[in-house]
């Protein structure tokens, strides 16, 4: 099959869906040239730097029959739009008694590793997960990116797409044919029987690499990629842990109140899964610090295959 990049897979999803549905349009502070070329400057607008207004405008346009796509670009820029996300987009479908739909895609990149320091490196999806009323995707491959983005654009709710900065240039197989990926269906990226690693985005690949190493040591690792954070495929995760009896969660975000904490809690609050747990539940996350600039500092902040493998060995040693 042909290989394309994670970034290009996203662009393909936009092009296909914007061709498919004339009510879609795209706003961002820098308009992406491929989209402008295809759809013109009325449907693809470069905007003033006012992400708050754009985010609110999406709501009004969506409530008036359109399907806006807002590219915040880096997730850290979305915080200027947080009122519109928290108090408006996530709440108004419910608050207005469901009288109209708000189909919106908000899009941004997350993660670190680019030596961009604290204001340009963050993975704050759990801040959004704490809200009710938003769906969220976090793809780990070009295939998943395209399929999930297409579903996101067709969804009748506000959806946030968190895309991993580290994966933008990653190549992967993406069929030419039309496909979509349903929300709420985790992907078991590798099967195993001793330990479950639930890994997010970039960490899926680190977990897979760790699994290779561990296999040589006789440890069989299952790697589960939730793909969508809301809805979360709790059942697949729990079933995996019931099988393996051990859980390691790997996330590029810091641990505190992170998606990793949620996944750990979802597993340990289920009596039948809890009963199968043989060892403590490990989070392999970033250090709980703002992201520093210098390579010698940034490099120790993030989790990676070695830290994942070490955590797996620890839980194996525990029981």
């Amino acid at each position, binding site marked *: 099959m042909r290989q394309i990049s994670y970034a290009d897979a996203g662009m393909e999803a936009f092009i296909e869906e914007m061709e498919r549905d004339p009510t879609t349009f795209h706003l961002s502070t820098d308009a992406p040239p491929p989209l402008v070329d295809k759809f013109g400057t*009325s*449907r693809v607008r470069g905007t003033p730097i006012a992400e708050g207004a754009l985010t609110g*405008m999406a709501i*009004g346009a969506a*409530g008036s*029959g359109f399907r806006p796509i807002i590219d915040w670009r880096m997730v850290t820029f979305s915080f200027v739009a947080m009122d519109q996300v928290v108090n408006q987009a996530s709440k108004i479908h419910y608050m207005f008694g469901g009288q109209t739909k708000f*189909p919106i895609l908000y899009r941004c990149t997350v993660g670190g590793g680019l030596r961009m320091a604290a204001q340009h490196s963050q993975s704050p999806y759990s801040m959004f997960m704490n809200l009710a009323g938003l769906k969220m995707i976090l793809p780990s491959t070009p295939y998943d990116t395209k399929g999930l983005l297409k579903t996101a654009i067709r969804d009748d709710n506000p959806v946030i797409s968190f895309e991993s900065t580290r994966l933008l240039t990653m190549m992967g197989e993406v069929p030419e044919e039309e496909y979509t990926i349903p929300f709420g269906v985790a992907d078991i990226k590798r099967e195993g029987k001793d330990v479950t690693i639930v890994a997010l985005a970039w960490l899926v690949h680190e977990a897979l690499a760790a699994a290779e190493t561990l296999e040589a040591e006789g440890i069989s690792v299952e790697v589960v990629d939730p793909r969508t954070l809301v809805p979360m495929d709790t059942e697949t995760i729990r079933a995996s842990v019931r099988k393996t009896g051990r859980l390691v969660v790997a996330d590029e975000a810091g641990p505190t109140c992170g998606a990793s904490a949620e996944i750990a809690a979802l597993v340990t609050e289920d009596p039948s899964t809890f009963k199968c747990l043989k060892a403590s539940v490990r989070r392999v996350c970033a250090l709980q610090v703002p992201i520093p600039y210098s390579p010698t500092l940034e490099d120790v902040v993030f989790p990676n295959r070695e830290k994942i493998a070490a955590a797996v060995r620890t839980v194996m040693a525990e029981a």
Partner: protein
Amino acid sequence: MEISPEKQREMLRLMQTIRRFEERASTDYVAGDIYGTVHCYIGEEAVAVGVCSALNRDDQIISTHRGHGHCIAKGADLNRMMAELYGRETGYCKGKGGSMHIADFDIGMLGANGIVAGGISIITGAGLAAQMEGKGRVAVSFFGDGASCAGPFHESLNIAAAWKLPMVYVCENNLWAVNTAASTTLAVQDVAARAAGYGIPGVVVDGNDIFAVHAATTEAVARARAGDGPTLIECKTYRHRRHTERPTQPDIRPQAEIDAWMKKDPIDRLVDHLQAQQGQLSVEEWQAMDAEILQQVEDSVSFAKASAFPSPDRVTDDVFAA
């Protein structure tokens, strides 16, 4: 532009409906039948009605925490409004929203909003939709003097101006934001002065003069429909009541200021105008109109009371659209 006596009477009816609806809402709130909080629009009715009477049904508006007036002026159903205040399943929001969140997308009322300045960007998006649609719809944002100091005001007006969106921005300058005086938060006399920074017209009108409001809106709407972009209209007005109907709500506004504004009551003015100057409304007609309105309000209360509270198992409905 002449407004026919029929239309004037219709404007009066809507203004008086707002007033009577809210008087009742306040009473029932204090009695404990309505919950949370209620912000009354009483005293500012000429703005909502003056603006909305210059709009078509498919034009869109957005409101604030002080939203009943805008709802009624745009044609909302009193029964569903009162039922919402009463927290009933027949309310506009099935009881999920309450006073601060009444919306009726079918009549182009995109919602009251509990966050100051929260609606301005949302309705600007409706304006963008109207522009892309190209059917001549316009979108109107209502907001207060307080909201005019918040970031979304600036970001939205700038975008609307740059893109010539078919928007009308209506600032209801009632001189106060809760107990903070506009004179202490604005270094300028007129919010309308800000229009200069966006290259759009900024107009100040007497917000208690419904004809002035209507005329300014008509002009702004024509401009917007013609593709010439947004207008900022500042309506100088005043709320007759405290910020909310909570009995313990403090009100530090000077009594002399309140008294002076009570004399400028927009309903009295329109009644005077119709009666004295035009001879188009007899005392009896006016009494009959008011009685009819009171009956409608009474009916809305009956409707609300006859409606069930939402069943607890509906609590997880509507988090997401199906």
